[in-house]
């Protein structure tokens, strides 16, 4: 069980804030801070009664302010993933895009850029085209959920901007993605 105070996550949160605008964000869904568990009381095992128990300080929890880039990255998730050579929006991606659309409607000043990415198991120019398809599929999905197309631009980085340096299936899975980068308008 984790005894880590959420305070320890704060540097990571600010790192996420910096990284929010680029494509090297760590896995948002799995690495988001967990709600801190109640600190277990200090060991008060029976024994010499002369020792006074010292109360562990109460945890301080941190959470991004609503409408910030890190709010979007951590609480909404800024990246969706695709199957090999595919660009259709999967069910797990649809859930995230619905959250993205709701957030974007809540903060109408925000402009985003959808960056399509491909894994390295394809050639350079084909992957530029494939990344474009992915970015466009995400844009269309967000527009279908009511986000104005004028707020969304797209670009493809092909296989040139991986987020995982590995050369295994897990790395390839992560590198097949579309990243929703906030360009402007966040609080």
């Amino acid at each position, binding site marked *: 069980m984790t005894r880590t105070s959420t305070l320890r996550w704060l540097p990571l949160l600010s790192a996420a804030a910096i990284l929010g605008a680029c494509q090297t964000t760590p896995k948002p869904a799995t690495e988001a801070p967990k709600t801190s568990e109640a600190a277990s009381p200090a060991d008060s095992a029976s024994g010499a009664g002369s020792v006074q128990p010292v109360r562990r300080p109460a945890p301080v929890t941190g959470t991004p302010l609503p409408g910030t880039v890190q709010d979007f990255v951590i609480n909404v998730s800024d990246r969706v993933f695709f199957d090999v050579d595919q660009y259709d929006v999967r069910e797990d991606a649809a859930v995230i895009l619905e959250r993205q659309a709701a957030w974007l409607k809540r903060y109408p000043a925000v402009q985003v850029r959808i960056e399509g990415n491909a894994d390295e198991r394809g050639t350079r120019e*084909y992957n530029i085209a494939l990344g474009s398809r992915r970015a466009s599929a995400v844009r269309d999905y967000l527009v279908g959920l009511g986000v104005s197309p004028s707020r969304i631009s797209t670009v493809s980085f092909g296989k040139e901007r991986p987020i995982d340096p590995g050369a295994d299936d897990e790395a390839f899975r992560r590198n097949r993605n579309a990243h929703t980068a906030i360009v402007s308008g966040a609080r």
Partner: protein
Amino acid sequence: MRMSAAALLIACLVLAGLSGVPAPARAEIEVDVNRGDIRPLPLSIPDFSGDRGGDIARVISDNLGRSGLFAPIDSGGRTAEVSTEPDFAVWKSLGAQALLNGQVNLVDGRLQVDFRLWDTFAGQQLLGLQFTSTPENWRRVAHKISDAVYERLTGEKGYFDSRVVFVSESGGRLNRTLRLAVMDQDGANPSYLTDGSEIALSPRFSASSQEITYMSLRPSGSTVYLLNLETGRRESLGQFQGMVFAPRFSPDGAQVAFAVERNGNSDIWVMNLVNRQSRRLTSDPAIDTSPAFSPDGSKVVFNSDRGGSPQLYVMDASGGGARRISFGEGRYTSPVWSPNGDHIAFTRQSGGKFHIGVMRPDGSDERTLTSSYMDEGPTWAPNSRVLLFSRQEAGGEPRLWTVDVTGRILKPAPYSSGASDPAWSPLIN
């Protein structure tokens, strides 16, 4: 009966199915440098006499040796005066079937190189020439001599007086810096053309060797540029609605073909560089990209997944008449037509590996030349004999490699830093 050195080599080439004789269609070839029946021709290139004579001999020797068709023999410190007939017995005893000797003079501030090529067994002179240039141009003179020797002994044009533009890759696997660079074909004189503030991809030479086109990629989008190597002048092809990528010059330099993406769909366009009018060549909901002109300018080979997976198609340069030419197992991308028109080289992905292969423009006689974790992006030497491509091991950095069109001579290119997307220039005039 004893054959001359030249006849011997040509005989070898014919036996290998190289001189225009179609090779039989083959299944996957296991690539092994040591396999195959070409015995490289042993030749000796002693230091030329005079200033820079040793350097010039070394550049020639490296060029010819790298081709895989010649085996330079250490002359053991021996030299051969260019003014008298060599003592053939000495060179034969070293095992040399051919001898190249030369002499460098500075005449009125000009570099003057006299050289002769000899068949040591027949005791005959095969070539006797004088090349003149500026002294600082000595490497280029050495490349020209290499081309003259190659042509005399193989009957085909050489490719040594040429350059390569490529994407230099540095900085690890995440956030790599990708910038354009150019070098001589032997790796000498490398220099950067862009500063790395943007991702530079897909450089290609014009027929003049003085201009390149490439794609620049930034978060805000992509641009296709024309870059004049002599003047450094850079010019954009203009604004497009979506991504614009994969540019190539037409053989006459008057047009650039490229891919344009709109709403996720990539099609092939061509721009007339004189009047700047663009025209769409394909109109298909599939990905169409990586166009390459035939050397006569009448056809374009390109990559499309209109049939369900990426395959190669040939169409008229005016658009239309597209027909599929790749039918093997796997995915075919990045086609490029050989300068002599005989072959189309490509990248093929099958069985979890990437391969460089060649086929006839009608799709027949497909042959696989290489195989690795990632072989990609072939480009032809100006004589259509050798291909340069990038190879990346799993988790590694890409490097440039060469393979000859038979697949027998596979070597790392003489440039040992991270590099991809090479494009070979035509012979420099």
